[in-house]
């Protein structure tokens, strides 16, 4: 006899559970962790290099770089002073909590103060797969266009900070900042945002100040 079984379980429940384990493990080891997400070419790796240049004199930092293939990004993070682990996702368009857990196994976690995770370049998939990091940061960039919050709402909904990179290109590109920010505001009211340029260094100070405040705040709670 066919019968109905009511379930009502989130499709991401297994991933969310592993993300919770990652979160407990990272906190226990005293790490502050940040998941950096963006489309391909938005400047994730450049921004991580800038961030490392500013923070490595004061903190011990691990970087985990997710890519479909190659270790170019991890090599760049290592060059910039982090201990880097590459995750090759083998075709998957995102890092999931299980992949992060395996990458954490390769690091002596208590050695570090900060973990920067560079997700796979993609504006759809990383939004759904929580990793268990303390903060989720989205990097948008001017050449992508001002309509991205409207086209990829899930990505903008649950992040804790937004970097708007390549602002040095604003004079050359039709990018309506008011339209862009209106979309952001609708999806994530009060989201803190930092217009930056990795090229000129503009705005990087404000991003680093925010990040250091978050790190200090996490130590006192």
């Amino acid at each position, binding site marked *: *006899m*066919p*019968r*109905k*079984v*009511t*379930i*009502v*379980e*989130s*499709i*991401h*429940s*297994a*991933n969310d559970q592993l993300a919770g384990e990652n979160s407990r493990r990272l906190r226990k080891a005293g790490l502050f962790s940040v998941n950096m997400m963006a489309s391909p070419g938005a400047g994730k790796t450049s921004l991580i290099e800038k961030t490392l240049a500013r923070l490595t004199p004061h903190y011990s930092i691990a970087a985990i770089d997710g890519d479909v293939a190659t270790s170019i990004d991890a090599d760049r993070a290592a060059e910039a002073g982090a201990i880097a682990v590459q995750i090759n996702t083998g*075709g*998957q*368009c*995102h890092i*999931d909590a299980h992949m992060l857990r395996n990458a954490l196994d390769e690091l002596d976690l208590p050695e570090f103060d900060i973990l920067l995770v560079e997700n796979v370049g993609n504006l*759809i*998939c990383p*939004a*759904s*797969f929580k990793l268990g990091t303390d903060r989720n940061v989205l990097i948008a960039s001017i050449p992508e266009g001002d309509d991205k*919050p*409207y086209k990829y*709402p*899930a990505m903008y*909904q649950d992040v804790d900070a937004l970097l708007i990179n390549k602002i040095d290109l604003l004079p050359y590109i039709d990018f309506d900042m008011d339209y862009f920010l*209106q*979309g952001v*505001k*609708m*999806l994530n*009211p009060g989201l803190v945002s930092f217009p930056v340029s990795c090229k000129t260094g503009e705005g990087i100070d404000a991003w680093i100040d925010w990040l250091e405040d978050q790190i200090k705040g996490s130590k006192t709670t």
Partner: protein
Amino acid sequence: MHELAITEQIAEIAIRHGEQHQAQKITDLYLVIGELSTVVDDSVQFYWDLITRDTICEGAELHFKRVPAIFRCQECGKEYRLADGELQPCPFCQSSRMEIVQGKEFHLDSIIVE
């Protein structure tokens, strides 16, 4: 290309609950997917047929219930939907202060077992 990962998660949840209920076979799955949650296309059914071979889910049919996004304006309190799939300020008072009432759902609601 996250559909494979999502399909595996759906199968894991369905098989776990099916086994708890001593099911010989799962014939139907009812999924609820909000307009603002993960993009899921027809490739899920394709992956489903591949990965559920020789499991109690083999041959089961996937039913998707799509839930439209609904927003409530924080200024005038009226509710509205996406316009042609695109986010918009409140069509009644133009405010961009709004809350998402529904559209973020992404869960397995129920299964039919034998």
